[in-house]
């Protein structure tokens, strides 16, 4: 069934900047310094990427990124050893290890990508939020909006937060009074993960405080990502209700239904 998207098509190239930049560095290393330098540069970049993947795993608990981390460590190691192995009789050993590693990890990573276990779900969230909002008329304001009260205990909210972080539904910030969920779109995660909580004013967030109050804030750049100027008040209400609904589903042990709802949108991995 053809689904009419309320978000603009994802034409952002921010997610491609790092891979393209890396390729450029590798090519330039080869041109100016030779093949050995190229392999060392490749190794360095894979290891830096590995550190990032490890940080994501530590921050979210998403095990898919742990697999990516191991692959990047492996790839970096292969690149580091390549200059020694390629130039002599042990090239066949290196090549076998490289192919075996790439195929093994490749299968795993493709599986993770196809099943969206390493996909940031920000766009799905924004699309689900807009599903029930038909009215247009703008009305944007940078103010947060109180949505209502919920009856969850602190432990239940924290458990839901861990679930959201693990499934990359949102980056979670925990403070003594509340938990704040920040949906992240694919391509936006590279710099996002290093932002301080103090910059929350500029992001879209959903806050559950431990007294039960729920409030939301939609950043202007996310609001402008919708094709039409949807009624802002209704959009905020919808965002808050979506997360309240998700929290309720998680509380009942139906966390998988949350994933199913997002998967049902059939968004591509890179969007």
């Amino acid at each position, binding site marked *: 069934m053809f689904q009419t998207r309320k978000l603009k098509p994802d034409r952002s190239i921010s997610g491609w900047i790092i891979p393209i930049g890396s390729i450029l560095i590798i090519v330039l290393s080869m041109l100016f310094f030779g093949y050995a330098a190229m392999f060392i540069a490749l190794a360095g970049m894979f290891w830096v990427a590995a550190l990032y993947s490890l940080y994501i795993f530590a921050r979210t608990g998403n095990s898919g990124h742990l697999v990516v981390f191991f692959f990047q460590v492996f790839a970096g190691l292969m690149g580091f050893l390549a200059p020694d192995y390629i130039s002599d009789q042990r090239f066949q050993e290196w090549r076998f290890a490289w192919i075996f590693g790439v195929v093994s990890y490749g299968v795993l990573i493709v599986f993770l990508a196809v099943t969206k276990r390493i996909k940031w779900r920000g766009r799905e969230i924004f699309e689900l939020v807009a599903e029930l909002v038909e009215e247009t008329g703008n009305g944007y304001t940078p103010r947060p*909006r*109180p949505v209502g009260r919920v009856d969850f205990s602190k432990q239940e909210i924290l458990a839901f937060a861990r679930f959201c972080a693990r499934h990359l539904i949102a980056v979670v910030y925990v403070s003594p009074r509340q938990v704040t969920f920040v949906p992240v779109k694919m391509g936006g995660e590279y710099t996002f993960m290093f932002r301080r909580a103090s910059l929350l*004013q500029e992001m879209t967030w959903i806050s559950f405080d431990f007294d039960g*109050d729920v*409030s939301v*804030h939609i950043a202007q750049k996310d609001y402008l990502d919708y094709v039409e100027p949807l*009624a802002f008040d209704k959009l905020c209400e919808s965002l808050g209700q979506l997360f309240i609904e998700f929290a309720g589903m998680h509380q009942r042990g139906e966390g998988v239904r949350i994933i199913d709802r997002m998967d049902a949108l059939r968004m591509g991995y890179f969007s």
Partner: protein
Amino acid sequence: MDFRTAAKLGSLLSKDYAEDVFDLLVNYRAVSASEVAARLDLHIKTAQDYLEGLTEMGILSKEEVFEKKRPYFRYVLEQERIAFDLDLMQVKRAPSADNLSLRIRERENAGARFLVGRSADTITHVTIWTGEGRERAERKIKLTAPQGKFLYHLPFPKAEALTVAEVMRKAGVEEALSPEVLDLVQLLDKYSVLEKL
């Protein structure tokens, strides 16, 4: 006594030379500005302005004297006591049914910036920009806790407007605090941050 009169009187009494001038006014039958200036080592204009100020307040009276070449004024003390009686309640905003039943919401494209408090259910500051072009100035208003909670629950632009009383109820602000809430409403209306329906 109103605020303006009290401020003027206070300003007169707070001068360094005030007590010395009154010393002369009490002990002399009448004094001129030049006599006060010479006696207290003040500039003649300073003495003149001071005595004229006291005359306007009704503390002194002046009589024109035609001695020597030019006529001049002599000032006589008219009051033996100066009482400061300022009723502060004259500026109290009493909440009326009309005020509390005003339907309000945020104005679209108001351009104000709202700083959320750490507890995330209150707004601590509102920044408003006034003026145009080179005269554009930023004004940051710090809110009290009830005002912050009230503003947090203010309906969005183009959302259904609510009365002031309803917003206060949603925000959990007591009716006794309505004067400061109404003050905020008045201020935000003045700067076109909110609209009344």
